């Protein structure tokens, strides 16, 4: 029996999540980093709920963004042990399935973090966001998917560079600006009820998710082949 492309992508995601779950190196670092960002800004902005509400969307995505950078680096750092990535590239029937698996694993890790961070932020910033949680979750999924789609590709491109920890954010962050912008605006509208066209920002997120995922699937083999 032959395994399908989807099974291969799921195998990569499962493998990455197993490795991460067993070491917990990255999960702990991401959580610590995200909590620190929220704490520092809560002190900086003071107890004024109006200020905190207005900044909530931006601060939340700042925490996700920097934690996500750790996740992308880690996704490929897992592959450097025993030169496993070379072995994986040599045997992989569909190299694009490796990319899809990496995206799935990073999205799962980031969503896990977001599920912890959003309620924590609501408590820290004294925000009543509980009724908005389902919509906020939808925005988080779309934003995280777009961010992970491009991050998983750039993580592969920079993994063999000596200065990969520096190069990854430098290359990645400018490209993800549209996704981050859309996610921040949509989150702010959902969490604070700020005025704005939520549907337009969601459409932008969906469009960039589709573009980034398609580009990743189509170019990953070429990127790692070089």
């Amino acid at each position, binding site marked *: 029996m032959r*395994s399908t492309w989807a099974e291969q992508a799921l195998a990569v995601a499962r493998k990455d999540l197993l490795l991460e779950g*067993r070491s917990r190196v990255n999960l702990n670092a991401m959580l610590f980093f995200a909590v620190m960002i929220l704490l520092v800004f809560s002190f900086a902005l003071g107890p004024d709920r109006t200020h905190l509400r207005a900044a909530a969307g931006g601060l939340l995505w700042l925490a996700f963004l920097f934690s996500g950078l750790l996740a992308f680096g880690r996704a490929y750092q897992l592959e450097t*042990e*025993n030169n496993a990535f070379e072995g994986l590239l040599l*045997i992989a029937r569909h190299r694009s399935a490796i990319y899809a698996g990496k995206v799935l694993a990073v999205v799962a890790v980031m969503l896990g973090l977001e599920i912890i961070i959003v309620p924590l932020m609501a408590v820290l910033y004294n925000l009543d966001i509980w009724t908005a949680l389902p919509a906020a979750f939808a925005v988080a999924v779309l934003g995280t998917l777009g961010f992970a789609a491009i991050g998983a590709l750039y993580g592969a491109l920079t993994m063999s560079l000596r200065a990969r920890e520096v190069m990854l954010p430098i290359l990645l962050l400018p490209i993800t600006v549209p996704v981050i912008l859309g996610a921040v605006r949509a989150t702010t509208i959902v969490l604070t009820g700020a005025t704005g066209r939520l549907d337009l920002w969601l459409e932008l997120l969906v469009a960039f998710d589709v573009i980034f995922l398609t580009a990743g699937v189509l170019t990953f083999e070429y990127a790692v082949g070089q």
Partner: protein
Amino acid sequence: MGRIVDVQGVGKIYGRSAALRGVTLTVDEGEVLALLGPNGSGKTTLLKILAGAIGPTVGRGTVLGGSLRDRREGVALLAAESYLYDDLTARENLSFAATMAGERLAAHQITAALDRVGLAGQAGTRVRSFSSGMRRRLSLARVALLRPRLLLLDEPYNSLDEEAVALVDDLIISVAARGGVMLATHDAEHARTIADTVVSLDRGVVVRREVLRAQHVG
């Protein structure tokens, strides 16, 4: 008899140093070819070029009928590195490798593969706790699962006891029956017991080619 490997004038340059210079060789179906040579003679580089892990700087040729720059199926490399994930168990490593290679294997097939290399008892143990010999055995099981037509082995006898050396030789003979095998080794004496052809490399150049015997399978 088909030609499995046919390369001409293959060279590889890293920066200013040439790891391989104008290597020309062939491997026919059923042939076991041993690459001998000191450290830095280019054995590993040649195997990695044939496996598709790196591209040649110059030269042309075919591996299993495809160009050196194509992706290739049916080739397996037992490299000096294990290619294993230390925090996965032996079973998980094999299952993952099989899935990625396009195979859907049942649990009993994975167990049988582990049993063949004497690791069935350690199926649920993480690789991190394995000795170098056990890792080598598991890498061997991983390569065998891929059922290659061209098997490339880089120092396959390193860290192995006599029983495991016999396992490597069995694998070589079984793959040679349906394709070809190239092994790079320092163990010239053992290589001569298993190989049909011995090619000696020195500083990236083929310096000698000896045909020892007719091939195992025609």
